[in-house]
């Protein structure tokens, strides 16, 4: 066996001698995904009457959006932007697709459109949140993915640079969704006007740093795909025309298109508009990439932002195995240590308090003793004085007549009251 050493992550490149068969793997993946079916969620944004419903119905050749009913004129103002979604299960060549289209009626229609993108942004983020919640569930076997895979933004064919509302909207959404701006009602512009208009739009987009979805080729693509991608890229932003009706051409054939007094514009004619390119990019070549980018890039960025803002910290340590017994013992040990520490502390404190109290008691005892001595000495002094006085009184004593007795009683009283 020949062997050529390569440096692809330490693995050697080896050449095989016969057919093994693992190249059949993509087919197996294909069969499994076909069985499972796909889903695709598209959002359309643009002012009323710009052709959103018609384009969607034309793209999928199905009446996903019904005809708008005519409402009588009313004095009620538009109530802001609504976000509504319609789903359809469509099938082609055995491949089942659950298509969801999210409409945004009311965008840009009011006099004041300053917060028109807010409900749309909230809707996109709430879908991310729903997915995040499902990912964090205990049982993750069934996750329903209704994240927005692409937003088609309809630009009015003014011929001038982008309007304020276009720029503001795209700036706020380009990091959250795959943004695909298209020029609506392209039959208004001649070929040269369109060329200039596209250049102006791209200049505006670059100037404001807006990221739009672009097909890129990498080294693994075959030259056919590379050429295709380059062709698609050259037409961005697509100038499209939609039509659900079939019209008769001069030669009698029926085509989807719009009939004017001066001619018929054909939806599927690449020389008339870029509808074919849009359909190709959106459905035939880059649908998977749109979903992939949504999942791997846009959603991940959103998730990171959200978790960081919630206070999670990135822990790059290897996840240690969870063993309950070991953990319990560890806990017990730490707990015991803690207990011992507390006990020691408490005894120390107790001792200290005892000492303090003893000292205090001693001190007061001494004080009391001192006071006692003092009082005793005072008392003895008083007693001595009294004895003295008594002796003096007895020395000058004569027999006491009853009248003197009475008088001395009084005097005695006075003597005593003299103290």
């Amino acid at each position: 066996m020949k062997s050529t050493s390569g440096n692809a992550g330490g693995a050697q490149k080896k050449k095989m001698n016969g057919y093994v068969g693992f190249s059949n793997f993509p087919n197996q993946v294909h069969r499994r995904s076909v069985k499972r079916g796909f889903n695709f969620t598209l959002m359309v944004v643009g002012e009323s009457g710009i052709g959103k419903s018609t384009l969607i119905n034309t793209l999928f050749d199905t009446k996903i959006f019904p005809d708008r009913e005519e409402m009588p004129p009313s004095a009620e103002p538009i109530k802001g932007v609504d976000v509504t979604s319609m789903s359809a299960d469509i099938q082609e060549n055995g491949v089942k697709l659950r298509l969801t289209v999210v409409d945004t009626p009311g965008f840009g229609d009011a006099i004041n459109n300053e917060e028109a993108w807010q409900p749309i942004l909230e809707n996109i983020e709430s879908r991310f949140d729903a997915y995040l919640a499902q990912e964090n569930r205990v049982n993750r076997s069934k996750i329903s993915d209704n994240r927005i895979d692409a937003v088609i933004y309809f630009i009015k064919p003014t011929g001038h640079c982008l309007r304020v509302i276009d720029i503001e909207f795209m700036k706020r959404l380009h990091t959250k969704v795959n943004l695909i701006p298209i020029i609506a009602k392209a039959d208004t512009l001649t070929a040269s006007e369109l060329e200039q208009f596209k250049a102006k739009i791209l200049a505006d987009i670059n100037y404001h740093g807006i990221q739009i979805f672009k097909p890129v080729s990498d080294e693994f693509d075959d030259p056919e795909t590379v050429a295709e991608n380059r062709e698609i890229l050259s037409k961005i932003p697509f100038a499209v025309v939609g039509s659900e009706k079939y019209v008769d051409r001069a030669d009698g054939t029926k085509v989807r298109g719009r009939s004017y007094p001066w001619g018929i514009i054909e939806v599927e004619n690449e020389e008339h508009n870029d509808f074919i390119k849009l359909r190709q990019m959106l459905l035939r070549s880059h649908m998977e990439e749109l979903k992939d980018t949504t999942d791997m890039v846009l959603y991940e960025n959103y998730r990171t932002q959200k978790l960081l803002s919630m206070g999670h910290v990135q822990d790059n340590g290897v996840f240690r195995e969870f063993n309950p017994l070991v953990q319990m013992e560890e806990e017990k040990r730490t707990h015991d240590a803690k207990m011992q520490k507390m006990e020691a502390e408490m005894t120390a404190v107790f001792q200290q308090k005892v000492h303090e109290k003893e000292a205090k008691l001693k001190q007061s005892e001494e004080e009391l003793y001192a006071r006692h001595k003092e009082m005793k000495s005072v008392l003895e002094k008083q007693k001595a004085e009294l004895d003295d006085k008594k002796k003096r009184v007895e020395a000058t004593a004569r027999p006491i007549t009853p009248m003197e007795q009475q008088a001395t009683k009084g005097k005695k009283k006075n003597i005593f009251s003299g103290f």
Partner: protein
Amino acid sequence: EGQDYVGFDTITQQMERKFLKRGFNLNVILVGESGMGKSTLVNSIFTTHLVDSQGRRTAQEVIRKTTEISPVTQTLEENGVRVRLTIIDTPGFGDQCNNEGCWVPVIKYIKDQHAAYLARELKPFRDRIINDTRVHACLYFLNPGSRGLRPLDVEVLKRLTEVTNVIPVIAKSDSMTSDERTLFKRRVKEEMAFHRITTYPYANADDDDDEDRMLNNSIRDLIPFAVVGSEETIDVDGTQVRGRRHGWGVINIFDETHCDFVHLRNFMLRTHLSDLIEVTAQRHYEQFRTSQLRQIKELRDQQAAGAAAAGVPPGAVATQPPVAPLPHQPVAQV
């Protein structure tokens, strides 16, 4: 010419001669969002490049934050008749996210012109010929594709129709098929009736004769005019045609089956031109004048009442010059 011929029928020729000498003013204001085709339409109507588009051309250009008023005056001459044509563009109108009040500078400009005229009329020594800057017509540009009138359109039209002659048009109507056009026109007329918005031409019950009335009715049916503008002439089978060339067909703006351009041009210039000027003077200007003078009178009554309360003799107040400060001050006296 018999002896019974008096000759006063030559007055029309005398008037014509005077007109040729003096010329006249025509002032038209264009109101609509950027990119609706205002400049192109005006340049198509007068078959000359009169105004430049004021749309934003490069990414570095700053986006206007308010509605600007930019009048451009030129003198055109045709068969000896001179017209001083002023086209007033309104760049910035309706271009913001928040368009509340974007109509205020427009209404103010129109009223200012009425006020300027009034001020000059009230002077003791008047100029023999007052230079008429009053707005004679307003072309209001509707958005093709919307169901009908947008909320902004309703608000602005209500106010505009009170001060000037409004002619609603759809400029880039080559994006609508004939059916869509009919539906849109019907819808717009319904909504204007609902919101009581009256556009020019007005229904004058008394002084119109049958011919005029029929013409006005047919004009009213066409409103809003679905037009296409073009400054280029293209070659169609050997003939030079003013129009637009698409990959799927060529639009000839003078072809009545393609668009209403011819009707609009004839209506504005060939049949109703003098009527536009007259109606501006008789209806809109008079309304303005009446309301202004009434306000002046009220002001003066208030002042007199105040002065009487303060004990000043009423005679002193009455000798004030009649050109008291007008409640609506004009910005510039042209």
